[in-house]
């Protein structure tokens, strides 16, 4: 299975639920989906097509918060990244994919604390990296978070 066959397989399966497919090269492709379809698409790619889940990454962009799930196909050397845009930055929600793969356990905790994205259905969203006394509602990887300057005179 090469990248074109894989993309065709996914678009045949989901039809208009796949918004944009952008094939950058023989090794990389990105596809946009609605946030509500994330579990179905991820389950199909991870379970049925047996891709490996690399990681998810969130991006704070102008239009909203993007969350990108990266999947690699190790037998044929390509990566497909599935992107969902959460438009409401004040209350971003997406369904958890930990039901599909336990490998998303930590990354959902991480994105939850660093970007403030809620993963509906994930019961374990305890802080992973930030200290326990980190103020709630402050998300360090959002663009509006400014790293406080250190004042060496006070140290």
């Amino acid at each position: 299975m090469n990248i074109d066959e894989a993309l065709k397989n996914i678009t045949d399966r989901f039809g208009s639920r796949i918004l944009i497919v952008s094939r950058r090269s023989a090794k990389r492709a990105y596809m946009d989906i609605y946030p509500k379809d994330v579990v179905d698409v991820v389950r199909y790619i991870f379970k049925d097509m047996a891709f490996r889940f690399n990681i998810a990454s969130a991006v704070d962009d102008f239009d909203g918060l993007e969350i990108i799930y990266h999947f690699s196909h190790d037998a044929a050397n390509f990566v497909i990244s599935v992107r969902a845009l959460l438009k409401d930055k004040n209350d971003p929600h997406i369904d958890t994919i930990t039901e599909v793969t336990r490998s998303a356990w930590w990354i959902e905790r991480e994105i939850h604390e660093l970007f403030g994205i809620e993963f509906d259905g994930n019961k374990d969203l305890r802080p992973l990296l930030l200290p326990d006394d980190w103020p709630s509602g402050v998300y360090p990887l959002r663009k509006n978070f400014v790293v406080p300057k250190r004042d060496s005179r006070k140290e």
Partner: protein
Amino acid sequence: MSHKAHVPIGPYHPLQEEPEFYKLVVDGETVVDVDVRIGYNHRGIEKISESKNFDQSIFIVERICGICSSSHPIACVQAIEDIADIPVPERALYIRTINQELERIHSHLLWLGLAGHFLGYNTVFMWAWKYRELICDIMETVTGNRQNYAMLKVGGVRRDIEKEHVPYILSRLDELLPKLDMLKGAVLDDPVLHARLKGVGVLTKEAAIDYATLGPVARASGVDIDVRRDHPYAAYDKIKWNVITREEGDVFAKTVVRILEMYESASIIRQCLDKMPQGPIDSNPKDIPAGEGIGLAEAPRGECFHYVKSDGTNSPIRHKIRAPTYMNFPTFRETVVGETISDATIILAGIDPCYCCTERMLIVDTKDKDLMNVEKLIKLSQEKTARIKEKMGL
């Protein structure tokens, strides 16, 4: 009657190299649940990288880990090269490969030493760390540094390997191989290690796939993946080498995979030095256009994943870094639960997170108690060794 106790380990602990907090729930000696709290080393490198330019961010990611200090930069430069399809001269690809494989040998030796140390087998610890010095010497010759090599840049490498250094590199490798044989014998032929590591902390193939584990952890559980072969980068597709896999999934299999991989690495370095063409080492790219790129590299612990998004300015607007331990570590619930607390150390160390030490503190009330003294303990130990030998037919 079952009696569950919580054993907290960390976050600050005299035996741990790095701070993290384990909470083991034990029933007698058996671990029934475990949880890990990380984040004591969180330095916000992804955030810092957004405020640096593309050249600087390579130096930042080099400092993520003192052991894999060429794996993160190579994944990072490959992600940036992926944005703009930046070409890399062939000689630079070979130099990158040599750098990667030297790092793999030194990292696996470091792990082997630590694993020996955790098991109380300090001979292996001393040997492994002593002969790791040979690799550090080569690194110093090739890159100028024993650690944090600063070799990589977008479009190539920063330093060439001089022709007069090649005989020295080869002589050091020649010196290393018999030592590797000795270490291999010391580990793989030792009945105590067989008894201690076989069948311990088994990660099944199904769990390894579901957790999307990487590197030697996945390969020891029968998952045949290696980024160097599956997503070829640098010069890995131009030379002959083997991916080492084992089916058992226990700590012993992980040890075997790492030891045998060091031989493959040594062979890769030799082939690279032999086949390396002459020519430029840098394509001198100018601007990074808007776009996004993904870089994959096989670090000693598994795949390093970097995602870089650029908006056409000179710094990334997002730089996601995923280290291999991030995927390997959450398997601890699969592997530790059901084992004894004394094995928890080596199981947690088996994935090579480099920071697993277990020490128990207890208060002994000596009133009305029969205490073991040194002589009694030694006698007990000798009796047990005799029993093991008899069981294994030695």
